C-alpha cells in the first residue's frame, strides 16, 4: 500500500527527502513495540508516565472512565492542554480525534502530535465514513474488533491497529475477544487455498490485495496493539501473550491507588510478559486497581466497541 501523497521537499538536508510516507508512518509504530502507551490528562501525569517508562502518552481531557461517567458529547481535547503535555515530555505524544472528524485530525496534525487516534471513545462525528488518513502526514492508529474492520482502517490509511476493548471499564474481556478474533481470522487466512482468498476478501469486506498480503505475512502489515480494559500487570502480559505487540493503558493507571508504581509495573510486565516470576514481583503491593465495570451490565448504547464501521 503506497498511495500516500508524497510530500517531497528539499529540507535541511539539502537532498531530496520525503516526509509522511507509509514507511515512516508504519515505522514509527514499529518503534513503539513491546511498550506501553498511557492515557494522561495533565502534564504532571505525562511526566509520571514518562518516568515509569511509557513509550508514548495519549493526551486527552478525560480518561474513558470519566467520559463514561459524565456522558454528553466527547470531542478533541483543548489544544492548550495537548501542547502542555507535548512540552512536558520528550517521548511521543498521541491525541484522539472523533471518528470521521477530519478537521479535528487536521488540528491535531497542526499541533504537532506524533500519532492521531481516530477513536471510538470520543463521540463519532460521522456514522458512515472514517477520516481519509492517507491525506495526513501524521500517522493514525484506529481500533478494530475483527480482521475486516482492521483491514478497512488500513485501507483508509491507518498505520497502526489496536483492539477496541471496552475502554474505561477496567475489564479486559473485550480486548481479549477482539485480539483473539483478529488473530484467529489471520490464522484461518494462512491456511486458505489461493482461490478461497477471493471469497474471504468478500466476506471480510476488505480489498483482496490486502487480504492476500495478510495471508502471506501471517500478520497485519501494520503493528497491532491491545487497548481497552487493561488494569493490572497481568492483564498487560495476557494481551502480549495473546499476540499484541504492545499495550495501551487508559483509565487503568490514573484511576488506581498508586499510579506511578502501577505504571512502572505494567511497563515491566509488558517486556517480561512471558516470565511469570517477573509479573509476580511487579504485582506485589500495588494497592487498589481501578474499580471495574462488568461489560455484560453495559447497555448496548454505552458500548464504545460498537462505534466504527
Amino acid at each position, binding site marked *: 500500500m503506497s498511495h500516500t501523497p508524497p510530500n517531497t521537499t528539499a529540507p*535541511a*538536508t539539502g537532498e531530496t527527502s520525503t*516526509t509522511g510516507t507509509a514507511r515512516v508512518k508504519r515505522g514509527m509504530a*514499529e518503534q513503539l513495540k513491546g511498550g506501553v502507551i498511557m492515557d494522561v490528562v495533565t502534564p504532571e501525569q505525562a511526566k509520571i508516565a514518562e518516568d515509569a517508562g511509557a513509550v508514548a502518552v495519549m493526551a486527552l481531557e478525560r480518561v474513558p472512565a470519566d467520559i463514561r461517567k459524565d456522558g454528553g458529547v466527547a470531542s478533541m481535547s483543548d489544544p492548550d492542554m495537548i501542547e502542555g503535555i507535548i512540552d512536558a515530555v520528550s517521548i511521543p505524544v498521541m491525541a484522539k480525534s472523533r471518528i470521521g472528524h477530519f478537521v479535528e485530525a487536521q488540528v491535531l496534525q497542526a499541533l504537532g502530535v506524533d500519532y492521531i487516534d481516530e477513536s471510538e471513545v470520543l463521540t463519532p462525528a460521522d456514522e458512515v465514513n472514517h477520516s481519509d488518513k492517507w491525506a495526513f502526514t501524521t500517522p493514525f492508529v484506529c481500533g478494530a474488533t475483527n480482521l475486516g474492520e482492521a483491514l478497512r482502517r488500513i485501507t483508509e490509511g491507518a498505520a497502526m491497529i489496536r483492539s477496541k476493548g471496552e475502554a474505561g471499564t477496567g475489564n479486559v474481556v473485550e480486548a481479549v475477544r477482539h485480539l483473539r478474533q483478529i488473530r484467529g481470522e489471520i490464522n484461518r487466512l494462512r491456511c486458505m487455498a489461493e482461490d478461497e482468498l477471493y471469497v474471504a476478501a468478500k466476506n471480510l469486506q476488505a480489498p483482496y490485495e490486502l487480504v492476500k498480503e495478510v495471508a502471506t505475512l501471517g500478520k497485519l502489515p501494520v503493528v497491532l496493539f491491545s487497548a481497552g480494559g487493561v488494569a493490572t500487570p497481568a492483564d498487560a502480559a495476557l494481551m502480549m501473550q495473546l499476540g499484541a505487540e504492545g499495550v495501551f493503558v487508559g483509565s487503568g493507571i490514573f484511576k488506581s491507588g498508586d499510579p506511578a508504581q502501577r505504571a512502572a509495573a505494567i511497563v515491566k510486565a509488558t517486556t517480561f510478559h512471558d516470565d511469570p516470576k517477573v509479573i509476580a514481583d511487579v504485582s506485589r503491593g500495588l494497592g487498589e486497581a481501578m474499580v471495574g465495570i462488568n461489560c455484560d451490565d453495559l447497555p448496548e448504547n454505552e458500548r464504545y466497541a460498537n462505534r466504527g464501521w
Partner: protein
Amino acid sequence: MSSLSSTNAVVGVLALQGDVREHLAALAEADVLARPVRRPEELEDIDGLVIPGGESTTMSKLAVAFDMLGPLRARIRAGLPAYGSCAGMIMLADKILDGRDDQETIGGIDMTVRRNAFGRQNESFEAAVEIAGVGGGPVEGVFIRAPWVESVGAGVEVLSRLADETIVAVRQGNLLATSFHPELTGDHRVHRFFAEIVRAARAEIGSR
C-alpha cells in the same frame, strides 16, 4: 566461550523494547544466528549485539531496572561488537543532549548524540544515504524522530553525512551506529557490514 565452537556467529538483539523482530530478520539474512537477549546471563555467549530502534528512555529505564546496564557496559568495554540504530545509537553514545536528566546510556562511542534532533513525527523522513564501507550505492535511510551526531572524538570514523553535513552514521572500533533504520527497508547491507565486524572480531578472539 561456547559460541566459538559453533560455525556461525551469534548476535543478540537487546529485546527490552523496540523493533526487535525486524533486526532479528535482517540479521538472519546476514547469515548470523540472531536471538533476543533480555537478561544478563543471555549476554554471556553472544559474539555481537544489536540495540534496536525504539524509545531510548524506556530502554534505558528497563536496562537499569533489570540489572542489564552494568553487564552491557562491561561486555562492550571488553570489545563486544555492537550496532545501534536510532534509539540504539543513543544507547551507544558516551554523551547525549535533549535526553531525560536521569537517562543512562551504555556508551562506548566517543560522540555526543542529540535526541529527536530532526524534530517530531511530522518531520520524520526518508532520504538516500551513502555509507562508507557499504558498497552498492546509497541505502534508503528511514529517519523516525531520529537523533543525529552532534560531535565525535578523534577515534571515531564518520561513515555517513547528509548533504548539509549532519553526521548520521559512525564507527569506532567494533561499534557501529546509525540515526536511521535499515531494518525497516528489506535491504540488509548494513546488517551484513555489521556481521563482518562480528566475524572479524570473533576470528581474532579465536586466534589468540
